[in-house]
């Protein structure tokens, strides 16, 4: 069991589907949805939610700050 669990919330309306967050996520959490937002952008989402450790790499590089990151300690 991971000592820490993380999760991201993507603001799907302001995400522009630029995918810059994808390569910086070491845990390969983020995928690009086949759905589109109202502007026609395929937005990012947590493809592998369990793998997320809340490291904030994705949030840091997102040009539109569309990603909020959460992290919580988990009792081992």
């Amino acid at each position, binding site marked *: 069991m991971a000592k820490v*669990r*993380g*999760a991201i*919330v993507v603001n799907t309306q*302001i995400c*522009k*589907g*630029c*995918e*810059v967050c*994808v*390569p*910086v996520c070491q845990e390969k959490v983020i995928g690009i949805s086949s759905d589109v937002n109202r502007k026609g*952008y395929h937005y990012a989402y*947590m493809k592998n*939610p369990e793998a997320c450790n*809340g490291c*904030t*790499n994705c*949030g*840091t*590089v*997102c*040009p*539109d*700050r*569309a*990603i*909020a*990151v*959460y*992290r*919580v300690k*988990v009792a081992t």
Partner: protein
Amino acid sequence: MEVLDIIKPENQVFCKSQLMTDTPLSYCPGCGHGTANNLIMEVIDEMGISEDTIGVAPVGCSVLAYDFMNIDMTQAAHGRAPAVATAIVRTWPEKYVFTYQGDGDLAAIGTAETIHACNRGENMVIFFINNGIYGMTGGQMAPTTLEGMKSSTSPYGREIATMGSPLKITELIANLPGVYSVSRHALHTHKHVRKAKIAIRQAFENTRLKKGLSFIEILSNCNSGWKMTPNDANEWMVENMFPYFPLGDIKVEGKLKV
């Protein structure tokens, strides 16, 4: 543990700065301008100086910066932000003043203003976003367009013989005594963003300590101008721009890094 349990407010460790407005950014998807705008506001917010900061937005992709940056800002004519900022800092010496300019604005039409504001060592911060092209007007050659790099006004690639070589304006101004600190950064990975954030904070610290001119160049992709996807553009930037415009400190505490 369910995702819903994780994403409780108390568990939030990162989000958009409250110093950024809710206006969606006008920048193209994946553009470094967005990251730069946000990062600067994050630093200003963390330093608690938003009420004493005045920004100067130029002409270029970032002309609408004041729609996104929730601080007092004035819009300068193309190339003239360093002059506009000079007057603000001279008449309000206790304020934090910064300009936020692109390569065309700072290194083409505004070359004289850039050099002389630096030479006077104005106590302010110049942010220089270098994406090697004129983005707003649709991808024309800029002073920092690399040799062989195509643009709408160098369709066969930049030719040194007829168009001159890419201008290293940052190294140029670093030699001016009035310039206190100079560094070059990128924002395409979390490591680079964190390093840039430290430099941005240091720059505003320099202003607080009245050390003179702090100059931060940020290399950026230009996806629409370069006609690449954001990640491809970032890779291209690493392979092509980094060798010509090396990252790192160029001048620290008034001394050139050898």
